[in-house]
């Protein structure tokens, strides 16, 4: 980790100095202990700010999309001959590169507009798990050393094993190494326990229908519709999201519980073949809605029905944008 971070800073500095990239989207130290936050670096001297550790949570592909589209917007009023191309560098782990691949596949930007600095990933810390283990106590100081979080809270020093606080999606991650990169930093990370990725989904599928519905309504009742999940999701990049559309008004804006359920249901459904299981939506959710239980099902269906995994190859198109003659038909009603 330390070496990767050191190398990352060097390489980032070089890239900026050489003008290969105009801005680097990476992570910097957060304002609270044991956190990291996304940052944008365009000055080579600031490359020292970059960090790479187990607290880098957000999927940066979201910001790459934002930066490129802001730049495009700013170029609209510039004479065509004076328009500048901007290359965005991004510190990308496996799931981030998958999101980038989805963007490229969906023709959001050109491959030459991004410079992928690949980093190996061994999983990130789930803040909610950490907070639960510390019984909600505030972290005053903390360091990560030897796969252990050494934390100082108001009630004294605590130690928490890193494996216990890793996010669920990281524990069963299949693609923790970058799938595409222009520059790879560090050795490939060891594989995670990918064979168990659908365990929770399989168990949930076996529950009786009323229990599944009860769980869905219980989880969705937590949702306050802050739309943080949508804002954090790299696959949610529509200029006008259906929740804000008024003609037609797809989702009511009151506090009716079914409006929340319909919002979540449709946002989840938009992720068929587009969710890379990066966990950003779950990490930003202030209410702790168990979105992964539902997102992972879409992942499973994507694999079983369409033989596709989101963002793993530029050649396989998004499953709902294509078809096969022999797609499954067992759900078709025959009187």
């Amino acid at each position, binding site marked *: 980790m330390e070496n990767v971070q050191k190398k990352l800073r060097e390489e980032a500095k070089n890239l900026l100095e050489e003008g290969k990239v105009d801005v680097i989207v990476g992570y910097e130290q957060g304002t609270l202990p044991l956190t990291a936050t996304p940052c944008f670096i365009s000055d080579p001297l600031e490359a020292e700010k970059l960090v790479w550790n187990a607290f880098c949570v957000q999927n940066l592909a979201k910001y790459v999309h934002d930066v490129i589209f802001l730049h495009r917007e700013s170029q609209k009023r510039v004479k065509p001959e004076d328009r500048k191309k901007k290359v965005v560098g991004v510190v990308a782990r496996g799931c981030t590169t998958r999101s980038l691949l989805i963007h490229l596949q969906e023709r959001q930007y050109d491959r030459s507009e991004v410079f992928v600095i690949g980093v190996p990933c061994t999983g990130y810390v789930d803040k909610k798990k950490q907070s639960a283990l510390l019984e909600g106590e505030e972290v005053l100081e903390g360091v990560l050393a030897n796969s252990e979080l050494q934390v100082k809270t108001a009630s004294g020093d605590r130690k928490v094993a890193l494996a216990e606080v890793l996010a669920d999606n990281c524990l069963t991650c299949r693609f923790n190494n970058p799938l595409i990169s222009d520059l790879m930093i560090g050795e490939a990370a060891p594989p995670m326990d990918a064979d168990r990725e659908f365990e929770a989904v399989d168990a949930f599928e076996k529950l009786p229908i009323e229990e599944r519905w009860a769980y869905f309504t219980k989880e969705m009742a937590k949702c306050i519709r802050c739309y943080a999940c949508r804002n954090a999701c790299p696959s949610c990049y529509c200029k006008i999201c259906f929740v804000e559309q008024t003609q037609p008004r797809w989702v009511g804006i009151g506090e009716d519980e*079914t409006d929340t359920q319909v919002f979540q249901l*449709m946002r989840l459904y938009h992720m068929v073949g587009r969710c890379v299981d990066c966990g950003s939506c779950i990490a930003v959710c202030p209410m702790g809605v168990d979105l992964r239980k539902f997102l992972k099902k879409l992942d499973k*269906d994507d694999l079983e*029905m369409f033989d596709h995994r989101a963002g793993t190859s530029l050649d396989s198109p998004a499953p709902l944008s294509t078809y096969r003659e022999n797609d499954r038909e067992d759900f078709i*009603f025959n*009187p």
Partner: protein
Amino acid sequence: MAENQSSENWEPRIVAIVCNWCTYAGADLAGISRIQYPPNVRIIRVPCSGRINPFYVVKALQEGADGILVSGCHPGECHYLTGNLSARRKFAALKSFLNYIGMEGDRTIFTWVSASEGDRFAQVIKGVTEAVRALGPAKKLVKHL
């Protein structure tokens, strides 16, 4: 749509979203041939089953429809060549997902009816009405004003 929810003589209300070229013509044929089928269905005509936003289905459920029927041309017979093939994928995923979260599978029904199948159209409507009647009034996801 919610007004007949609690009454004793409840009748299922089914929204049928059908494509202009096959199923709608099939419904037409059923009418011309004077084939009888239950009057519980409200037909919405769209250009192609591929044009149906899955949101229509969810929205109809939220607005209180007891059942939704989506029907288009048989695979390979689409007026626009591949519209129904894209639709098939969309609805396979939607149906599976609705079932996963705990919605009854028989409330959302997908099928194919061609323009020459007036009889099949009547059979489909009968089948759907019976299936929805067996489930009773829709309760999940229904918005009450």
